[in-house]
Each structure stands twice: as C-alpha cells, then as structure tokens.
C-alpha cells in the first residue's frame, strides 16, 4: 500500500513519518514512532486510553487518521514531564495512588491536563463529566477525581 509522507510536530519536536492512508494516529505513535504511552483499550473511541491533543484539543488518537497530522501539532503523555521533572498532575497521581494497573493513566493525565488548561478551578461534577470518556477498570474513579481536584487547587495556589 502506498504510504504518504507526513510532516508534523509532536511534543514540540518537528517530526516526519510514513503512514498508509487508513492507518490511525495511535498505531503510528506506538508502532512507527515508538511513543507507547498512549494505549489502545478499545480502538473505537470508548475508553480514552489513547488520548492526545491535536492543536491543543483533546482527541482520541484511535479515531484520527495519521495522515491528518500533516501540518498540525500533537502532544502525547511523553511530552508531559519536563525531563525528570514530573507535571503536578503526575506527581499528585503518584502521591494519592490514583492508579492501579496504569493502563488508563496516560489517557487520564492527558485529558486532565487539557481540562486544567481550560478550567483551572473545576467542580467535582465538571471533572467527572470531562473525564467520562476515560474508562478505568481499577480505581473506581474516586482517587482519580480527588487527585485532579487536589492538583488544580495546588496549581492555583502556586500561580
């Protein structure tokens, strides 16, 4: 199958790759680019484990064609920490044990970061609705929601 050449930006780095026209972004991230943080839980938009941002907007990478990345800017979980310095959400998830098996965690973190960038002071209901597309079979969600609220409060305090 003829592959297309795609030029894009991933986590701030200019990136090029080859993709067949029907390949999704998640497969290219994981298999071509070795960015295996985004996970495939379902491949059909239901679980959110593959969450990334496209030009700052939260999307499922399993529901995006890789060729659509041409000329756009993507961020993944790999771009969240600055070197060894974890993002406050990552730090708080560790401290508050907001994860168990960790499969959902990259998607939850990417989604939660997008929320706090848009709304630094979300209510619990707003957090729950925003994260409704991120399924977790382990934690029962409560610890995730608490960790996001706690991080938001801390980041507001620091700002």
């Amino acid at each position: 199958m003829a592959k297309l050449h795609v030029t894009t930006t991933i986590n701030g780095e200019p990136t090029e790759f080859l993709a067949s026209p029907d390949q999704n972004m998640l497969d290219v991230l994981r298999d071509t680019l070795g960015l295996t943080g985004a996970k495939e839980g379902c491949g059909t938009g239901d679980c959110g484990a593959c969450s990334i941002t496209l030009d700052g907007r939260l999307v499922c990478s399993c529901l995006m064609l890789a060729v659509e990345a041409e000329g756009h800017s993507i961020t993944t979980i790999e771009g969240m920490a600055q070197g060894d310095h974890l993002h406050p959400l990552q730090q708080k998830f560790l401290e508050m044990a907001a994860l168990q098996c960790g499969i959902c965690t990259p998607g939850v973190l990417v989604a939660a970061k997008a929320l706090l960038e848009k709304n630094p002071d979300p209510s619990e209901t707003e957090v729950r609705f925003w994260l409704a597309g991120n399924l977790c079979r382990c934690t029962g969600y409560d610890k995730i929601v608490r960790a996001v609220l706690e991080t938001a409060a801390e980041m507001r305090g620091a700002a």
Partner: protein
Amino acid sequence: MTDIRYLAPQTLDEAVGAFAAAQGAARILAGGTDLLVQMRNGMAKPGTIIDIKKIAELTTIARTADGGFRVGAAVSGAVLAEHESFGTVWPGVLEAVNLIGSTQVQGRASPGGNLCHGSPAADSVPAMVAAGAVLTIQGPNGRRELPVEAFPAGPGRTKLAPGEILVSFTLPARPKGSGDAYLRMIPRTEMDIAVVGLAVNLTMANGVVTAARVGLGAVAPTVLLVEAAAKALIGSKLEDAALETAAAACRAACNPINDKRGTIEYRTKVAGVLLKRVAAIAAERAGRA
C-alpha cells in the same frame, strides 16, 4: 489489496469532483468518529477518503445577513461550544451537539457527520429539526437546499445523491422571546445512545406560544418533525391540557424498535414525558430571551 487514497482538498469543487469521480468507492471524512469505527469493524472499506476539514466553508460558523447562523457541516462540537454567541441564541441546538460522546469525541465530532451517518438516535438532529435548520448541499449538478427533516431516508440512509456533500446548516434569525431545548433519555448519565431524544423550539409573546417546532429522535426509522405536537402548543400558554395534547401527539408519532435499552411501551411513554419537560425548559429560556 487495492490502494486506498487520502485526499484533503482545499475547495468544495475539488471535493465534489473527487467524490463524484470515485463513483461510490469514496467516503467523506469529517471528524471520523463514526467513519473510523466503521472502517475498523469492516463496515466501511473506502477506496478513497476525502477529508473535508481543509475547506473553509465546511469549518466556519458565520452570521447570515438576516441575523441567523450558518454552521459548516464539519465544525466540531468543541468549536461550536466556544463560539461567542451561538450557544446564547440556540442553547438547545448547542446542548444537543455537545451531548455527542465524550470530551475527546467532542473535539472531532461534527453535526454534519451526525446527520449524514443516518442514525435515528443521532442527538443533534432533533434539535436541528426543531430549530428549522435548512441544509445546503453541493454536488456534481450544483447547489441545493433542503429542510433538515427531509434529509434522513431511514436508518443509515440519507437523501444525498451520489457525489453530493453536505455543506452547512442555516439556522434562521430568532424573534424576541424565543428559546429551544433538547433532552435525551439514556440509561446512564454520559456516553450512551438515546432511547428517546426530543427538542422543542418556541417563540412566546405575553406568555402565549406564537410559534413552535418539535423534533423527536430514536423512536422511528428516522428523526421526526412532529407537527401535531407543535400545533397543540401554538396559541396556548402551555397549560396542562395543551401539554398533554402535545405529549399525546409525540406518543402517536412513535414507531420504535424494541430492544434491551428500551421497549416499545417505554420509548413511547418517555416521548410524552420528555415533551413536557423540554417544553418547560424552552419556555423558561424564551422568557429570558
């Protein structure tokens, strides 16, 4: 394996040309939240994928000369929600569009894709029907317009002719005292398919309904415009008797499927209940507008 192609034309003419030339082997790609799922499960095997998101007219929200709105078919729910005035003028249409899927799905899903996918349970469609949206469609033989309620042809089927692309939804200007609303009944609180979806659009003067439209989804092979329900509301002050007549009209319009998510009896009954609830919200919004 045959070669699959991806095209992202900058103009509608190019897109229509490529779509028509492919003779049914091509699929239009808007947000991809239905199409990529279908490609994955083998229901869609397009030879050519035509991405319409680089075409300005398909991705813009504009005010029309008379004060209405023209919403490009491929505008995402998230972009529509961020528009400075759309949600104040058409809160019911916006809430219906924003009910589609999760935050992630909202980042991509479009009202055009929702309508063209042809699901009888598509959330934005009853609200567009109640709003009186008019579609602009472009194909190999030029442009045409169609009221949104005339567009669905059955589950998964539409009135688009070969090579035609849905361009935009035009919503009329709002008289003072207008309000709209949409509610769906789902077994969960998020991320589910409507068992019934119902939208009401009202204009009121001194407490009396002067104009009304009712859109009803998920209870028949296509989304319906329930004219008998609107007739019962017009001229009334939304007294119990008028609401009950309108609710009965909605129940009468139902021709639903029976499935694990809702029996025929349940869907029919809920259609009447929703009419009353949604009319109350639309009236409250009309009182403020």
